[in-house]
């Protein structure tokens, strides 16, 4: 079975992806055997698959920590601590989304096996995206992720808003992929190879003022900025967040962000390192614009999903600041990004879990006013939401503070004081708009006393996200050490 092109080690490197693919296919088949009342078993099967993948990733860690990265499939894939760290966040985030989805899909009357299969296939795309060091692998992985996202966005087939969001997402996504592909083809023309390492070597040999290099950089970055929802390529975000099923909004806001940022870091730090002065310049401008628009546009939103769309945009701005510091060779800049991604995954999914609890058959529950009087109706839930919002705003001792602290630290260490001051100022703006929700929950009167959507899946998801949001905030040391180990491959 093993030959010159496919070794046992190659198989081991993609074992988590293979597991998820098998479980995704199993869900599709298993779905046919299930009665309507037993559809939750699809979610259980998906969770088992995600559990096996997570276990395999955890087992990889001691083999790779402090060691050289494993390079597989003729140098097109790499398995290092960075890839394992990002994949683990993606798998855990997807597991939480599966838990959130069980009750939500039941309420929406759309509990089909394809949903969970698509989530697992999207994960496979994301996992290859964080491991890929070859332009072709990266593009295929990106498209696998994106195609599953488009279908999941339009999953509520009878809901017009869901369909419109999917069409808009698909068309704009297709154009951005085209732009990305232009950039990749220009990089191939420059490097004579699709491998990032070889492209970086060829870029070093070229004159820094070569306009072809700049054009490749612009088209590539524009495509990636679209994927991560950075300004001025963010327009799709609020519309898609609003129209997509809430559980998918939670998924899109977290897992693909982690994968896209990992891909972005790999391209910039490995492939485009010789052009770091140029991409740093662009990233500074885009980060400022992203933080500004995200924070100020969130203030005026009344729909909570659009609100979180703009909140996500502002968080992307903070993440980009970590890249600005990393361009100066600052290790803490990348450490800040990977910690921020971990923290953001749990606090954002926690907030979305509360929104899903608000969803009832007769009430969409996605207006900020729908949270009015939550403290009097369900005090425990209101306090949970308060903790997630404080974390999103970056208030200690929550996890969000640790993420923001490392971003500010990296900016100060690299002498970008004006960016650090701006980032702190926008954190104050963020506190204001997150507190709009707190005011609605604690100060306003409840419109009705109808029961909220609850279930074992939602309870586990809320408990897990709360535990991580508090644990990372109160005892961050092990998470910081893991994050430092995750970025080591870029600096060794």
């Amino acid at each position, binding site marked *: 079975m093993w030959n010159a092109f496919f070794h046992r080690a190659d198989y081991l490197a993609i074992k988590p992806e293979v597991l998820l693919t098998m479980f995704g296919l199993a869900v599709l088949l298993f779905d046919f055997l299930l009665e309507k009342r037993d559809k939750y078993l699809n979610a259980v099967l998906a969770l088992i698959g995600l559990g096996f993948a997570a276990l395999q990733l955890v087992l990889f860690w001691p083999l790779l920590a402090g060691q050289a990265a494993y390079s597989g499939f003729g140098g097109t894939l790499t398995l290092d601590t960075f890839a394992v760290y990002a994949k683990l966040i993606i798998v855990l985030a997807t597991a939480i989304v599966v838990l959130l989805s069980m009750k939500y899909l039941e309420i929406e009357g759309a509990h089909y096996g394809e949903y969970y299969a698509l989530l697992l296939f999207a994960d496979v795309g994301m996992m290859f995206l964080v491991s890929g060091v070859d332009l072709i692998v990266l593009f295929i992985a990106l498209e696998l992720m994106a195609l599953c996202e488009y279908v999941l966005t339009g999953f509520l087939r009878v*809901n017009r*808003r869901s369909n419109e969001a999917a069409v808009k997402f698909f068309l*704009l996504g297709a154009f951005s992929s085209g732009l990305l592909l232009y950039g990749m083809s220009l990089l191939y023309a420059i490097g004579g190879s699709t491998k990032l390492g070889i492209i970086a070597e060829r870029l070093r040999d070229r004159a820094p003022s070569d306009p072809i290099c*700049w054009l490749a950089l*612009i*088209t590539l970055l*524009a495509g990636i900025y679209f994927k991560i929802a950075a300004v*001025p390529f963010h327009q799709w975000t609020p519309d898609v967040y609003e129209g997509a099923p809430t559980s998918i909004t939670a998924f899109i806001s977290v897992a693909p962000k982690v994968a896209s940022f990992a891909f972005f870091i790999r391209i910039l730090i490995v492939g485009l390192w010789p052009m770091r002065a140029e991409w740093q310049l*662009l990233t500074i401008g885009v980060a400022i614009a992203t933080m500004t628009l995200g924070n100020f546009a969130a203030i005026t939103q009344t729909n909570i999903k659009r609100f979180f769309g703009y909140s996500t945009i502002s968080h992307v701005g903070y993440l980009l600041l970590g890249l600005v510091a990393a361009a100066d060779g600052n290790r803490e800049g990348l450490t800040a990004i990977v910690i921020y991604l971990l923290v953001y995954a749990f606090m954002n999914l926690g907030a979305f879990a509360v929104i899903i609890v608000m969803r009832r058959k007769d009430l969409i529950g996605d207006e900020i006013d729908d949270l009015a009087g939550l403290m009097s109706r369900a005090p425990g839930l209101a306090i949970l939401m308060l903790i997630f919002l404080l974390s999103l705003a970056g208030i200690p001792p929550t996890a969000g503070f640790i993420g923001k602290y490392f971003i500010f630290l990296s900016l100060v260490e690299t002498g970008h004081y004006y960016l650090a001051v701006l980032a702190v100022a926008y954190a104050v703006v963020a506190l204001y708009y997150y507190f709009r929700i707190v005011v609605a929950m604690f100060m306003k009167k409840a419109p009705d006393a109808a029961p909220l959507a609850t279930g074992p899946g939602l309870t586990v998801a809320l408990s897990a996200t709360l535990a991580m949001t508090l644990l990372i905030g109160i005892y961050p040391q092990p998470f910081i050490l893991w994050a430092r180990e995750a970025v080591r491959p870029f600096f060794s």
Partner: protein
Amino acid sequence: MRGGVVPKASGKQLSLWEQVGFYSSLGFIVPAAAVGGFALGWWLDRWLHTSPVLSLVMGMVGAAGGVVEILRILTRAEKHDDGNNSSAGPDAK
């Protein structure tokens, strides 16, 4: 977008050949805007000796302009679609 009909800004419908031309041009909008912006920036950089700032910034602004234009076309098509389905039907939520 239903039926593949995109109206002109004036509200007048496009003929079949106009639609073919229109849809064929969509794929070129974003890259053409990016390359156009970049070319303008490069020329300005040479003139003002600011290389590579304006090339990079104008290229990015051009690409963003292309995306905004696509979004504008989509929004117009959606509005047109809503107009054709003003009775909304059972699937409207």
